[in-house]
């Protein structure tokens, strides 16, 4: 079957006997596959994943798994329904031939498709010095194997753990270490933990949280090198301020890189910032022309969002992966008039040091912040972010029940500062202050949201190909 499925009858044919290939057998890939079957797709479905495991859940890896409360191989994602797929696990996709509609695999095989969904996500950014990164005791945390290895290293009772990078993952790791009674040092290049994602005002709260819980937090410094002992085990790290920290476990938590290399040269609009797609999850080619048969979802996608000035958002959010997969799957099996835009309001959660943190909207877009409820000092609050007189995001610490309200306000493009009174409004919540995000040109641990791209009014569109 060769039709694109947009003409009369061909869509029915696609649903009946088409071939759909999903590359990236994790959260987004699985959820999309389930939706496709739900929508009556009866053709062949191939799931390609380079990890040897069936789809599993990552958030527990930095939380329950590190605490030893859950085993890494028990984090398999619950199935919403059977998907009857041809699973190709443990084999990477290595190339894409858009003209022949064919995905090439690492084992020399090739799989042809009528529709392709790319959900290859991101991987942990490795320690820049490969030799140092290969020392025993040096970890990153992205996969089940990473989680299991790190949990085992923590269970062995290291004398000190060093976490490099205080983003969400780094902070959660530090929190788990403290909960296990381990000494931990956190090194962060920015002025505070979480500054890239939530700004300096909230970062200061996070810093306090770290210190009160006994984390040796070093901010405004970089780790310049890792040092191993003669047996090839890490033993110390050297800092840009000249200091040295001895640690037998080091976790590199410097953000993520998009898994797009396998597409270089394919002609698809894929690069280090992800794969650009339209609001309906259809991928762009390098010429900026939308494809008809290639869709993108999850962490690897970069899509324009109407609520945020049509900027292209790259999100590393669990909920985004689920929602975008659903939209992509729906659109893959729909004629153009029935397609839906992916209009999910970004939302993220984290839990660290016993505090439940949640955000909606795009905090890094905010220039001002206002504590709308509760108090920073109690670490129980809701804060709103403002951007050009609009409410653009909100974050709560141990106060998440109010979050749906802020989400609605963001959707309704409500004004900032909010003109209303609320329950639990304290004196510190009467005046907006600068949200205090670091200069985006100075790298921190890598924010979990990046904004890029251009509004439809902006005609200059340039493409940065893969390295």
């Amino acid at each position, binding site marked *: 079957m060769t039709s694109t499925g947009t003409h009369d009858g061909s869509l029915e044919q696609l649903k009946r006997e088409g071939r759909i290939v999903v590359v990236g057998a994790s959260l987004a890939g699985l959820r999309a596959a389930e939706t496709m079957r739900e929508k009556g797709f009866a053709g062949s479905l191939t799931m390609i994943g380079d990890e040897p495991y069936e789809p599993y859940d990552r958030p527990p890896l930095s939380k329950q798994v590190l605490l030893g409360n859950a085993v890494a191989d028990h984090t398999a994602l619950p199935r919403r329904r059977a998907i009857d797929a041809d699973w190709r696990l443990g084999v990477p996709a290595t190339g894409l031939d858009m003209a022949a509609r064919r995905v090439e695999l690492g084992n020399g095989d090739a799989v042809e498709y009528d529709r392709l969904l790319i959900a290859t996500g991101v991987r942990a950014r490795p320690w820049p010095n490969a030799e140092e990164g290969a020392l025993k005791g040096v970890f990153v945390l992205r996969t089940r194997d990473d989680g299991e290895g790190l949990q085992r290293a923590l269970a062995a009772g290291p004398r000190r753990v060093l976490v490099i990078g205080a983003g969400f993952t780094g902070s959660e790791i530090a929190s788990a270490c403290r909960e296990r009674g381990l000494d931990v040092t956190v090194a962060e290049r920015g002025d505070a933990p979480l500054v890239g994602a939530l700004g300096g005002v909230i970062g200061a709260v996070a810093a306090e949280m770290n210190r009160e819980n006994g984390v040796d937090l070093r901010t405004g410094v970089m780790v310049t090198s890792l040092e191993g002992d003669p047996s090839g085990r890490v033993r110390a790290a050297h800092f840009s301020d000249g200091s040295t920290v001895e640690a037998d476990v080091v976790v590199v938590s410097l953000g993520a890189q998009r898994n797009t290399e396998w597409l270089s040269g394919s002609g698809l609009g894929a690069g280090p910032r992800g794969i650009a797609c339209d609001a309906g999850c259809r991928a762009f080619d390098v010429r900026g022309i939308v494809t008809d048969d290639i869709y993108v979802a999850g962490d690897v996608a970069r899509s324009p969002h109407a609520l945020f000035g049509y900027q292209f958002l790259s999100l590393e959010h669990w909920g985004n992966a689920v929602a975008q997969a659903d939209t992509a799957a729906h659109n893959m099996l729909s004629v153009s008039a029935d397609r839906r835009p992916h209009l999910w309001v970004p939302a993220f959660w984290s839990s660290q040091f016993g505090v439940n943190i949640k955000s909606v909207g795009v905090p890094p877009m905010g220039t001002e912040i206002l504590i*709308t*409820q*509760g108090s920073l000092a*109690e670490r*129980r609050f*809701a804060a709103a972010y403002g951007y050009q007189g609009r409410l653009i995001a909100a974050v709560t610490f141990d106060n998440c*029940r*109010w*979050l*749906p*309200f802020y989400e*609605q306000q963001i959707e309704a493009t409500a004004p900032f500062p909010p*003109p*209303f*009174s*609320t*329950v*639990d409004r304290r004196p510190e919540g009467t005046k907006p202050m600068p949200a205090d995000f670091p200069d985006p040109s100075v790298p921190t641990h890598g924010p979990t949201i990046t904004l890029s791209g251009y509004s439809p009014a902006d005609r200059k569109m340039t493409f940065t190909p893969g390295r």
Partner: protein
Amino acid sequence: MTQALLREIIDYANRANPYPLYEELRKTPVSHDGDGPYVVSTYYEIHSLLHDPRISSDAKNLKATGDDLLGEQSDEEGTTLPPSFLKLDPPDHDRLRRMTNRPFGPPHAPRRVHDMRDELGTLVSGLIDGIVETGQLDRIDLVDQFAYPFPVSVICRLLGIPREDEPRFHVWAEALAASLDPDPDADPTKRGQGAMDARMELGMYLAGLIEERRKKPGDDMLSQLATADGPDGAMTTMEALSTSALLLIAGHETTVNLITNGMLTLLRHPEVLQRLRNDPDLAIPIVEELLRYEPPVQLLPQRTTLSDIEVAGVTIPKGASVWLMLASGNRDPKRFENPDRFDPDREDIQHLGLGSGIHSCFGAPLARQEAQLALSELARRLENPRLLEDPPPYRQNSVLRGPRHLPIACDGIRP
């Protein structure tokens, strides 16, 4: 028009089936006239207001008193105690609720409710055995003989009321319940006095118990509230008193109705009752659907706006009284397919039966467990149960709605 509809809803004559009136009400999601309350009747609007920080649960934010339609029905604590967290806003609400939750639920007491299972089972069996002992199976009042005593005993065990004092406690609880459910024929001053007396006596009794527990703490909630050493510290005696009064009232007035409404609904749907008899686990979805279909708390009449709020095109002004019609939202066809159908196989069931947001039912896990156990045991043990009156006589109360009596008959009771 709203006022008239509201009056009809509150009118006892419509107690047995207010749902057609709710349907009428939903034609205007936010309705208001005269100086009455703003009445919100549709699912999404109610849900969003339950998460709206511009809404207060603290009565002192109410500007105009408006038309006191419900009279004293809504006043469960009187003026003798400081307001319980049900009637407070954050931060006070949060602090008290947190302190109450510490001994009750996760993360600090993750197993409390679960560990009561055996005790609940014993209570349920005991009450059903009690029915057997009366030897009268041709007229059982499921309210007086089962649904009423059960949750009060549960609260007693939870708070740590000594067994020998339970009978006294039941008497006070009953007097308080009566004040929530005024008999229109009774002399109002006398009735009020009775409730006041019961409240006083109960308060004194609990205060004494709290003092005792301070000296010699046990494993019960009263001890833990009075002696807690968490980040929020312990409660003052007054706080512990108003909290236990809240647990007592909210914890059983609602459960009685959940169980009774549940049994009534099952008797009206014998095929579901039969399924439950064969599969006790079906009690879980049945109770969820009941909370949607016949919620024990029909409406929340105690919300006030702190700002002007626009809802469904209507601006509710600051200081207005807002009624959230939970039972109506639960049957909103925009939210639930076939909303008037009792369907325990429903998959998407995010009902409003336990509220939502920061005031969502504190005792929800316990209430669920009580109702699941009660219904599955009744289904298992009663042989050929049938309703003797349909509809049964209802209680006066339109907020906490449920049958006052549920006369049934059965052919026998299995061991």
